[in-house]
């Protein structure tokens, strides 16, 4: 099932394959988020999920031909970094993994 776009055929195939690969990768990271034996494992998985979602935003901005999605990627990257730092402080203060 291909997404219908106004792109050239080679770009359309590329963009579809990229979205598929990124979603598979998102799924793998989600399995780690679900299974992760300790809290830092889950935080690493969340960090990776944020990076993958930023990449999906970037690819999707090509699909719909709207560069506005890059702004959403900036905001997401900022917020997730703060979340990672907060989780690290919290883990260290809590004192167990």
């Amino acid at each position, binding site marked *: 099932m291909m997404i219908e776009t106004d792109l050239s055929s080679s770009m359309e195939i590329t963009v579809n394959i990229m979205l598929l*690969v*990124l979603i598979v*990768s998102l799924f*793998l990271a989600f399995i780690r988020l679900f299974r992760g034996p300790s809290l830092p494992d889950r935080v690493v998985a969340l960090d990776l999920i944020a*990076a993958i979602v930023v990449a999906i935003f970037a690819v999707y901005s090509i699909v719909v031909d709207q560069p506005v999605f*890059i702004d959403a*990627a900036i905001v997401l990257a900022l917020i997730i970094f703060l979340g990672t730092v907060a989780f690290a402080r919290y883990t260290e203060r*809590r004192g167990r993994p």
Partner: protein
Amino acid sequence: MSEIFIIPLMAVGAALMLLAGVGILRMPDLFTRMHVATKSATLGVGCILVAVAIYFGDIGVFTRALLVIIFFFLTAPVGAHLLGRAGYIVGTPLWEGTKWDELKGKYDHANNTLESPESLKTREPRSDSPHARETD
């Protein structure tokens, strides 16, 4: 044609992201997982954003994509360092095949200090250590 640059860059970026996903699932302990997730995900996001910047060919989009790339390259090591430090301090188990643990026995959990050979030579009494736990 800019597609000559865009398609390989996006392919490399997506392959690196897939590598990060497989690695975070397959690696045996927290530190190896962090290693694979941080490095390859950062480079993958960088490749894909460069491809997007080339695709739009606009100075505004280029600046914003560059901003995201710089931000990722600055914050990913900082976040991974903080998280790895926290994970080590709280005693996350290492992989059983780990050969070297250079911090083993050198980290003082009572007052959050690290013993190096210099501090072993000129060690003060621990009781009047200036940062005894209140820096936490």
